[in-house]
């Protein structure tokens, strides 16, 4: 079990309301990702769920029971911190066993669980080392190990991969996803990296200034962003958002088209402009196009090794059925 429900939850630090009234249901077994720009209240929301911060008003229910006033240890949740928060004076084994020791569990059972966790996370080689003698990725695994031995009803992750290098991050991303498939436990994951959100989540919660902008599966958010904020935030590179006259032609205040939904054509494109910066990734090339007559710079994805360099003229054809339209309030028009 691991259903978490937030009902009209708010949080203020002094006079500043960081989270205005917020409702959210996280279903049992779901991998939910909170994503949003820095300072939007993701960590705060996670800490409210964990019980590390008191909520200012509203209710939190875990598995149908009111947990608003429960201390963190009694909520049955395990958290993995950004700094790993390993206990530096204890060996890896003692670190992982710590929550079980605090629960006064039988030593034989503690051993069994620690060994099982070490097995799952490949910790066996350095189980007697101290955290200071481990690499970042290994520390991350230990922190996850300390969380899984408790067999919590949900895991909370606060940007667990942000201290790792790019290659390791991709690896750990896979490991956490696999762990989720294996354990089938609810996971709540905070990140500001929309790639992490897209690749890992069953459900993405997009936050801005403490307000939920949209909740949905990664593809839902990609295909039908509810407003310009979500449209610009989800997807990489960013969706082209175009206002002014061009948008007016489509009866909208803003139109959006993703770089991958614009075709590069030989001639007679709907738009034409000159190539600015070209980012060659090998499989794809991203062109930034200027002088299209639009107020914004347009980003385009072209497949493979297309031969255009700085200053060349380029013809573009957006796919009209992939066009997103938004009204003056930034809300989606269907």
């Amino acid at each position, binding site marked *: 079990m691991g259903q978490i429900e937030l009902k009209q939850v708010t949080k203020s630090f002094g006079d500043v309301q960081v989270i205005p009234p917020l409702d959210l249901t996280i279903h049992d077994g779901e991998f939910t990702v909170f994503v949003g720009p820095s300072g939007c209240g993701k960590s705060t929301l996670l800490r409210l769920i*964990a*019980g*590390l911060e008191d909520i200012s008003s509203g209710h939190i229910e875990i598995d149908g029971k009111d947990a608003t006033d429960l*201390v*963190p*240890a009694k909520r049955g*949740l*395990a*958290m993995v*911190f*950004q*700094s790993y*928060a*390993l*206990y*530096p*004076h*204890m060996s890896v084994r003692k670190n992982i066993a*710590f*929550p079980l020791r*605090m*629960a006064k569990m039988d030593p034989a059972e503690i051993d069994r669980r620690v060994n099982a966790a070490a097995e799952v996370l490949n910790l066996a080689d350095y189980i007697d080392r101290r955290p200071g003698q481990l690499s970042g990725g290994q520390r991350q695994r230990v922190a996850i190990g*300390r969380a899984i031995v*408790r067999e919590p009803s949900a895991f909370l992750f606060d940007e667990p991969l942000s201290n790792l290098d790019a290659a390791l991050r991709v690896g750990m991303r896979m490991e956490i996803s696999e762990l989720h498939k294996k354990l089938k436990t609810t996971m709540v994951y905070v990140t500001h990296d929309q790639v992490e959100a897209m690749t890992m989540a069953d459900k993405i919660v997009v936050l801005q200034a403490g307000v939920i902008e949209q909740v949905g599966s990664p593809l839902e958010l990609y295909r039908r962003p509810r407003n310009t904020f979500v449209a610009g935030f989800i997807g990489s590179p960013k969706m082209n958002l175009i206002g002014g006259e061009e948008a007016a032609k489509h009866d909208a205040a803003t139109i959006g088209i993703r770089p991958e939904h614009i075709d590069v054509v030989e001639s007679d494109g709907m738009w034409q402009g000159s190539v600015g910066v070209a980012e060659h990734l090998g499989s794809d090339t991203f062109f930034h196009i200027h002088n299209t007559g639009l107020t914004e710079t347009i980003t385009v994805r072209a497949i493979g090794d297309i031969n255009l360099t700085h200053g060349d003229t380029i013809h573009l054809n957006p796919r009209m059925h992939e066009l997103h339209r938004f009204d003056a309030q930034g809300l989606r028009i269907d």
Partner: protein
Amino acid sequence: MATKASRSAARLMMAPAVILLLGWMLVPLIMTLWFSFRVYLPLRGGDQGWAGFDNYIRFVTSSAFWPSVQTTLIIVIGVLAITVIFGILIALLLDQPIWGQGVVRILVIAPFFVMPTVSALVWKNMFMDPVNGLFSHLWRFFGAEPVSWLSDASLPSIIMIVSWQWLPFATLILLTAVQSLDSEQLEAAEMDGAPWHKRFWFLVLPHLSRAITIVILIQTIFLLAIFAEIFVTTGGAFGTRTLSYLIFQRVLESQNVGLGSAGGVYAIILANIVAIFLMRIVGKNLD
């Protein structure tokens, strides 16, 4: 300092300081050793030649020697225990967000700026005086018989005075250590179900061990030599004669420099034994 060049540069840079410190230490040390083997009575004939080991034998066989060693150790251990325990408590309190934090912190540090002689006199005359002291007024207020602190409870009184002086130092060092503790670790432990006393035992105390080691080492060095506090309060009476006070009496009251110097050499040996002992127990925290 990894490379050979940087190591030798470092040696060169450090040389003046090392030489200066060595000279500073070696000159008095050699003079003490020299006098300890001489019969040197400034008011009764001056330097009268070699004494062999007579001074050393006389110093240890005197009935005052072992009690003075014992007194020294009691004071050192008592002050260390009080300053470390209360230092940790006050550091933990000062780490809490409280109103007027800055002022409170300065007040806590204040005793360290008071000269030992002055603070001992203040304690003796304002607090511990059996007739006019604040304590005697307090005792009488509750209908109790005032205590003659410095004669009836002389050692505890001195431990109290010295602890009061050293508590700020311990608190300050421990406070910086407390503040450097990662709050996410404490939160992780909270989520792991550790109540506050277990968080203290398993996280805070191990984190403080290095700072505690430093406090103990530095304080021990200074406490072995406390003098002013005893000089202005009991004058070495009522069982408060420490080793350093005994040496002072031999040199100045008995006017026997040779005998006092021999005592000084014993004091050096005692300090080294204590230091080695401490390094063994707690030094591994300083790796």
